[in-house]
């Protein structure tokens, strides 16, 4: 939702920015054009002034000096000089039909508009009124006059109109933005639900119709996929459960009878020893079945975690002590290094499962180093408040194949070596959202979430 508000505010901001930019561009262009127009007008005025100033009377006759004539012939098609009575004192290239005295009414008319469709420019000189004409249809003449009140009003209305325009555009943008926001909100909710694996059915209409359709399709696809995965997981888990269940009864018989035989005094010693081996191997199968069941339950998230508060320092001391108390051989040593800060740390977790995973890791080091090794178990507090556990040994280390199998997806570990104990340990830590990292073949590091 926060994202959506950001999108909407950005949209509004962009729209207003666009509007202001357009406005500035227009003002800029208006100023440029106005400047050009003013320049052109003043140019026309300056031409006629040049001509007017070049007029002179010699011997009672009006004549035009050289540069005045050049300017006239360059910019005008004809010209005439009228005296105060409207009679022509002087003329140049004046068409025949215009060569006549002009009344005051005629002068007033062409000074505002055109003379025989010629756009004319007038200038009062010492000798009379100079009238110069440009090419027909080359200039648009207009007259503007209004009351000062109206002009003032227009001057005041410009900022008001500008403001009203801006407000109108802002409101239009806001209305469209809100409509857009509403349709996006539906999509946003849909995407959020989709990310939480909830089924969605969005209304397929409006401007987001196509997007909604695609999202609905994706949701259907994901649901089908999820159902297929769940069915497959259920089938796998129940298969493992039923197989292990079915094995338990015959294995009980094997273990029971083998235990009986190994203690049967009527049997020769060799046969008693063989019976003991059968009993021992049956016990191994029993543990394997239990591990297989636990790993499958953890894999398919069917193992509920019994979360309680636990002190990691206490947990580790108990685990390490148990190893010693259960009879650790003299060639093995387990050293525990506890950061004093960890003593007061309380974590949430399934104590039984965590005990099992730490024991698995320590037990692995011991089991795979029958000639002896020193296992170091350390716990420290990180600056983030997480606890970092490290279990390392100076023994043979975890083979590469096992490390690879541990980091690979379960589907690709069919040919992997037997790593049930390690896998379960990793699964338990990950089920607690703790990170497991094999720093090297001899060191595993676990960081709490």
């Amino acid at each position, binding site marked *: 939702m926060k994202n959506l508000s950001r999108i909407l505010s950005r949209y509004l901001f962009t729209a207003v920015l666009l509007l202001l930019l357009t406005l500035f561009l227009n003002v800029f262009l208006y100023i440029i054009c106005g400047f050009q127009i003013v320049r052109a007008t003043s140019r026309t005025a300056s031409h006629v002034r040049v001509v007017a100033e070049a007029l002179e009377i010699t011997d009672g006759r009006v004549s035009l000096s050289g540069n005045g004539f050049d300017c006239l012939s360059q910019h005008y098609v004809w010209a005439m000089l009228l005296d105060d009575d409207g009679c022509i004192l002087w003329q140049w290239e004046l068409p025949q039909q215009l060569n006549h005295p002009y009344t005051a009414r005629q002068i007033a008319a062409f000074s505002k508009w055109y003379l025989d469709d010629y756009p004319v420019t007038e200038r009062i000189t010492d000798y009379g009124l100079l009238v110069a004409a440009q090419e027909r249809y080359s200039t648009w003449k207009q007259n503007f006059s209004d009351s000062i009140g109206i002009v003032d009003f227009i001057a005041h209305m410009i900022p008001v109109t500008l403001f009203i325009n801006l407000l109108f555009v802002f409101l239009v943008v806001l209305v469209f933005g809100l409509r857009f926001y509403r349709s996006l909100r539906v999509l946003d909710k849909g995407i959020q639900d989709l990310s939480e694996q909830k089924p969605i059915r969005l209304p397929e209409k409006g401007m987001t119709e196509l997007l909604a359709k695609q999202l609905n399709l994706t949701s259907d696809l994901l649901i089908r996929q999820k159902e297929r995965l769940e069915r497959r997981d259920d089938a796998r888990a129940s298969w493992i459960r039923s197989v292990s*269940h079915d094995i*338990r*009864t015959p*294995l*009980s*018989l*094997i*273990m*029971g*009878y083998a*235990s*009986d035989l190994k203690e049967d005094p009527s049997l020769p010693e060799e046969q008693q020893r063989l019976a003991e081996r059968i009993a021992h191997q*049956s*016990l191994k*199968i*029993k543990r394997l079945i*239990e591990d297989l*069941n636990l790993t499958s*339950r953890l894999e398919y998230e069917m193992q*509920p975690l*019994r979360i309680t508060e636990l*002190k990691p*320092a*206490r947990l580790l*001391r*108990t685990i*390490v*002590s148990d190893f*010693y*108390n259960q009879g650790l051989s003299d060639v093995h040593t387990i*050293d*525990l*290094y*506890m950061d004093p800060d960890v*003593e*007061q740390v309380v974590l949430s977790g399934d104590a039984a499962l965590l005990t099992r995973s730490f024991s698995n890791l320590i037990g692995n080091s011991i089991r795979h180093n029958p000639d002896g090794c020193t296992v170091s178990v350390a716990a420290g507090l990180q600056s983030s408040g997480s606890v970092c556990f490290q279990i390392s040994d100076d023994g043979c280390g975890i083979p590469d194949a096992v490390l690879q199998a541990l980091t690979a997806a379960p589907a690709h570990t069919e040919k992997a070596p037997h790593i049930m104990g390690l896998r379960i340990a990793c699964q338990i830590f990950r089920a607690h959202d703790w990170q497991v990292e094999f720093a090297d073949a001899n060191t595993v590091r676990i960081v709490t979430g």
Partner: protein
Amino acid sequence: MNHIYEARILLVDDNPEILEMLENILARRGFLSLRTAPDCEKARELFSLYMPELVVLDIMLPDGDGFSLMRDFRLVSDVPVLFLSARDEDNDRLLGLGLGADDYITKPFLPDELVLRLTAILKRTYFSRLRQEPEDPPLVLGDRTVFLKSGIVRYGTEERTLTAKELALLKKLYENRGNIVTFDALSDAVWGENYYGYENTLMVHVRRLREKIEDHPSAPVWLLTVRGLGYRLVRDRKELS
């Protein structure tokens, strides 16, 4: 019943081979009165006729389940029940124990373990009240004798008294003699749950205890420190050598 081996035991399991094996195992260990039932119906019939003093129950039975069978039995009697099941899920275990079962063993099982647990239930149920609590034998640590009940340490003609905390420490160590007892477990025993965190306090008490039970408290031979973990009371003289 004068002895646990005279206890009437009813074994219920849908697998006849398991029943046969259980019967053999228990008979060989000396149990005299055993009956078997392959289903709920037969189990109910035998229960009312035979009035067993202990029932070993499977959970999955052809005509019902062990949980409801136990409920039925418990309506008329407080007979102890031990579940023996191929179902190892925590929920089943918790359900069984929650219903009041005395123990829960998953198949496959070690016969010795089954017999031990079964014997423990019988002793607990039928003989605990009758059994005389034997007085704890005095704890002999070299030339010193500790009387745990009175908290007195005798050394020749000299006698010293242990404080309550020293006695609690020594009792905890004695109960786990030969094993490491963690700082946490010792603190729990002396001060109650989750007290640990004051290692120095514990060390002070251990030092005072050593002054009373060791010849050379600074070089102890009976109450040993296990670095980083806790303390250990040496099992016997043999271990000392």
